[in-house]
């Protein structure tokens, strides 16, 4: 019997009077995976997360978290859930330790020693008032509060905001460990290189709609690559235009460049007619693929960087 999905939404919608929000978001996040939720500011990421957490109520559709109804069983869900809100705060006067103590009381049975362990790992000061901490150091406290009780599902809204590169690496390490433990991690992020490194799948949201859900390797694999070929002599582009998958071939100084998606072999055979002096094939980064969705709404528009 397959494990229950960690998150399932069915046409989840939250429409505000101004017209923003989310519409018909249908997705499944499998148990044990790390799922990235991508979109620019205002796309609907936080709205989706808050609807899942029963902080706001959908106008249509439904969601199930760990097999339970997100609204009716909200309290039961939160026993197994850890959440880092988008802009973590807990009051200026409270210390991280007081916040941990409160959460230990609210989460009957949680082990506060794990919070100390994470604090050491993230070099977080639990004994200073949160109002005296920088944004990054407050964010560490938020991460600790979300993760210290070893939840089955971690929902993290922009988790690395304000963290320095070393702490970002620690965070990625933590996510890896959570996945190895069997937990599910659902995170929204702008840090696309991190998402590319850590996520199994990503969902891309634009203007309140989920426009793609794919495995990261598949997304990158289907995206258009950029090919630059240096040739000696004149280059005839007609042969290239006939190759399936080749897009927009154009002559450049000393050669040809074109976009390409699909089987590389016909391309190589078409290039055999030229005197090729150099060949560069660039795979797009997740960022370029992501931006492609916002330029025209298709992964095929991802352009190449250097490899």
């Amino acid at each position, binding site marked *: 019997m397959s494990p229950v999905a960690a998150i399932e939404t069915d046409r989840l919608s939250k429409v505000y009077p101004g017209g923003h929000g989310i519409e018909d978001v249908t997705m499944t996040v499998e148990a044990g995976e790390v799922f990235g939720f991508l979109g620019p500011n205002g796309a609907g990421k*936080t709205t989706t997360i*808050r609807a899942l*957490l029963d*902080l*706001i*109520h959908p106008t249509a559709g439904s969601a199930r978290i760990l097999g339970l109804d997100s609204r009716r069983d909200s*309290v*039961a869900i*939160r*026993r197994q*859930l*850890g*959440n880092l*809100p*988008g*802009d*973590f*705060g*807990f*009051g*200026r006067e*409270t210390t991280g330790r007081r*916040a941990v103590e*409160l*959460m230990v009381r*609210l*989460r009957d049975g949680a082990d506060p020693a794990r919070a100390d362990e994470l604090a050491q790992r993230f070099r977080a000061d639990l004994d200073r008032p949160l109002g005296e901490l920088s944004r990054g150091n407050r964010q560490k406290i*938020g991460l600790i*509060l*979300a993760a210290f009780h070893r939840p089955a599902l971690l929902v993290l809204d922009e988790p690395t905001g304000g963290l320095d590169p070393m702490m970002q690496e620690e965070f990625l390490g933590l996510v890896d460990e959570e996945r190895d433990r069997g937990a599910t991690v659902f995170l929204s992020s702008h840090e696309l290189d991190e998402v590319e490194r850590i996520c199994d799948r990503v969902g891309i949201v634009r203007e309140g709609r989920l426009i793609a859900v794919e495995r990261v390797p598949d997304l990158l694999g289907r995206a258009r690559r950029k090919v630059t070929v240096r040739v000696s002599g004149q280059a005839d582009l007609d042969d290239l235009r006939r190759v399936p998958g080749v897009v927009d071939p154009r002559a450049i100084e000393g050669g040809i460049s074109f976009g390409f998606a699909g089987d590389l072999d016909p391309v190589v055979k078409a290039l055999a007619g030229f005197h090729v002096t150099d060949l560069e094939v660039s795979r797009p980064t997740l960022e370029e693929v992501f931006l492609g969705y916002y330029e025209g709404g298709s992964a095929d528009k991802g352009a190449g960087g250097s490899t």
Partner: protein
Amino acid sequence: MSAFIVVIYPSVQGALTKVVAQYPEGLKQAFGIGELSNVEQYLHGEMLSLIVPLAVGYLAARAVASDLSGAAESGRLDVVLSAPVPRAAVCAAAFLASAVEVAVVLALTLILSLFGSVVAGSGLGVGDAIQGFAAVWPLALVACGLAVVVSGFSLKTSVVTGAATGILVAMYVLDLVGKLDSGLSWVRYASIFKYYGNAIETGIEPLAFVGLACLGAALLALGAMLFARRDLAA
């Protein structure tokens, strides 16, 4: 302030009696001013009839607003509600914390007033004073309940505090209008101050005390229901 009133009473007693004797009867009844021939009457007229109830009501509403709206504004509510805590429990905790805070404030005020009375020789009766200050507490519970109800509509601390306190003030005005104009005496039934009375002189009215406390609890229940249904925007 109450302690100050008690301390200065012996000095102003004679003059007060003459001044009050000249007030119109209707005015005296409307503002609960008696003959001021003893410190209990003076304390009620100066503090317990208006200032203390409204001040304590404001304090109660502000405390609830801080625990609900303030928590939402600071982000603490998001974190607390990531734990397995029903929203109704959050409301109840805010209500109870405020009720305890107000009880402590009233107790301290009582103690200081009694101390002032001993120092100044004002003769404030301990039992009378206890009843006088205790009778304010259920009004504060109503203020707490009103704040929870308003939190069901707004998560701005200033709005919750202002609206709950404003309703208390409006009820005081209704009660006053009803006392000043016998033709409008029916409006007093819409005011909790009708049931507040003058406990420092006549003792706590048990039915009114329990009734106001129950009203506070009922407002808490209504407010918790509204709070559970509302969106908690980021």
